[in-house]
């Protein structure tokens, strides 16, 4: 049994909220910068150049990469040999978010009720996903999610007979409908299988995976590659103003599903795909 105090969790989450909003993960950053070299549209190149310059300014002058510093999505994997002491864990996670968004000069974008839309003024509560895993460590991923792209995400309950072609059509339709609204170039997180809510959670998790580590299942890896190619053939381009760079990457996560179903969730993220992971 290992004891972890909630003060440690608060401190780590605070730092991760700030880090995620000022510095992109290296896989995302290198794809944004790499796209500039490959893009052939004049306006597209101009926009990708601005995005690279934006990343430089964000880290040099300590300004958040995007003004939508997101709703804080937290994945927390708790080793079953860990004993947590201090605050209630959920309070501790939200305290970390509160401190991070305040001390990091991040925007408070959460309202307390979907209809009574009063800002909670500290960006809490976060969206917390708990997993119990073997071991004596806690792994935390903080992924601040902007809603320009979140709003363009979709869930489809396809039929088994729709197969891979049906999934492709659903993804391409979603990306086309998103068009300029989701701030392309985008990253596409896809969850396939499970149930209605499981595929959505898988899609969100897929966004936190390093884009340089494709799926370890061959048929899924092929689907990731095919979809990235086909999305970039749509011509939406940077800012939705035309070009080859519509998506920077496609990550897919799968799960066993029911004999009657083929659930698919497409979670779209803009090029500011933020995620930081730490282990305590």
């Amino acid at each position: 049994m290992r004891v972890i105090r909630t003060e440690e969790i608060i401190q780590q989450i605070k730092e991760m909220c700030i880090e995620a909003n000022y510095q992109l993960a290296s896989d995302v950053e290198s794809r944004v910068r790499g796209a500039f070299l490959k893009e052939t549209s004049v306006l597209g190149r101009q926009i990708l150049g601005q995005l690279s310059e934006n990343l430089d300014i964000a880290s040099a002058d300590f300004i958040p990469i995007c003004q939508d510093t997101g709703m804080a999505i937290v994945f927390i994997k708790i080793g079953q040999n860990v004993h947590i002491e201090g605050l209630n864990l959920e309070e501790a996670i939200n305290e970390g978010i509160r401190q991070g968004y305040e001390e990091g000069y991040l925007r408070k974008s959460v309202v307390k009720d979907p209809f009574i839309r009063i800002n909670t003024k500290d960006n809490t509560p976060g969206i917390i996903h708990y997993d119990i895993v073997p071991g004596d460590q806690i792994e935390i991923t903080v992924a601040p999610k902007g809603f320009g792209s979140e709003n363009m995400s979709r869930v489809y309950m396809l039929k088994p007979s729709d197969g891979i072609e049906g999934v492709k059509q659903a993804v391409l339709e979603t990306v086309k409908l998103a068009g300029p609204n989701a701030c392309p170039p985008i990253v596409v997180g896809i969850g396939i299988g499970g149930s209605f809510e499981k595929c959505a959670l898988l899609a969100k998790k897929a966004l936190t995976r390093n884009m340089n580590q494709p799926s370890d299942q061959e048929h899924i890896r092929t689907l990731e590659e095919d979809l990235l190619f086909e999305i970039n053939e749509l011509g939406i381009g940077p800012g939705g103003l035309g070009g080859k760079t519509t998506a920077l990457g496609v990550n897919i996560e799968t799960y066993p599903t029911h004999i009657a179903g083929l659930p698919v969730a497409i979670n779209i993220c803009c090029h500011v795909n933020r995620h930081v992971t730490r282990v305590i």
Partner: protein
Amino acid sequence: MDQYITTPLTTQKVEELRAGDYVYLSGIIYTARDAAHQRMYETMEEGGSIPIDLKNNIIYYLGPTPEKENQVIGSAGPTTSSRMDKYTPLLLDSGLKGMIGKGKRNQAVIDAMIKNKAVYFAAVGGAGALLSKRIKASKVIAYDDLGTEAIRELFVEDFPVIVVIDSEGNNLYEIVMQSS
């Protein structure tokens, strides 16, 4: 074509702009996003007066991050415009001449733009740090209780935007998709 424009706009200035033009804006512009639009709209529907003079002015769909002590404003990129569509025709009919945001607009907005000779610009989404550098002054002038969604008066210099929908209704998003 690159154009340098000083605010306030005029019908003549707007009519010279074409979808696809790259424009550098200088002068005063105002910020408003979801909550401020709803409040202005409801006030106008009830016959009340709103805190900004819309005539020939530009609204930027922006909710910035908090500024630090040495900064004019925090990160300051555009939010998705379509959420403002419900409120926009009334604002255009009341003199609003330009909007800065990102993403598609509905037909009612485009019709009101043609009728009132207005222009819709896009700024680059997700370039909030870069765009903040072109904002030289910022002050909250109304709806302070809305926090990031308050109405701000900004003074911008060579603020980079692209004409997406011009006063004749030409739409760059559609033009690029038709040609691809």
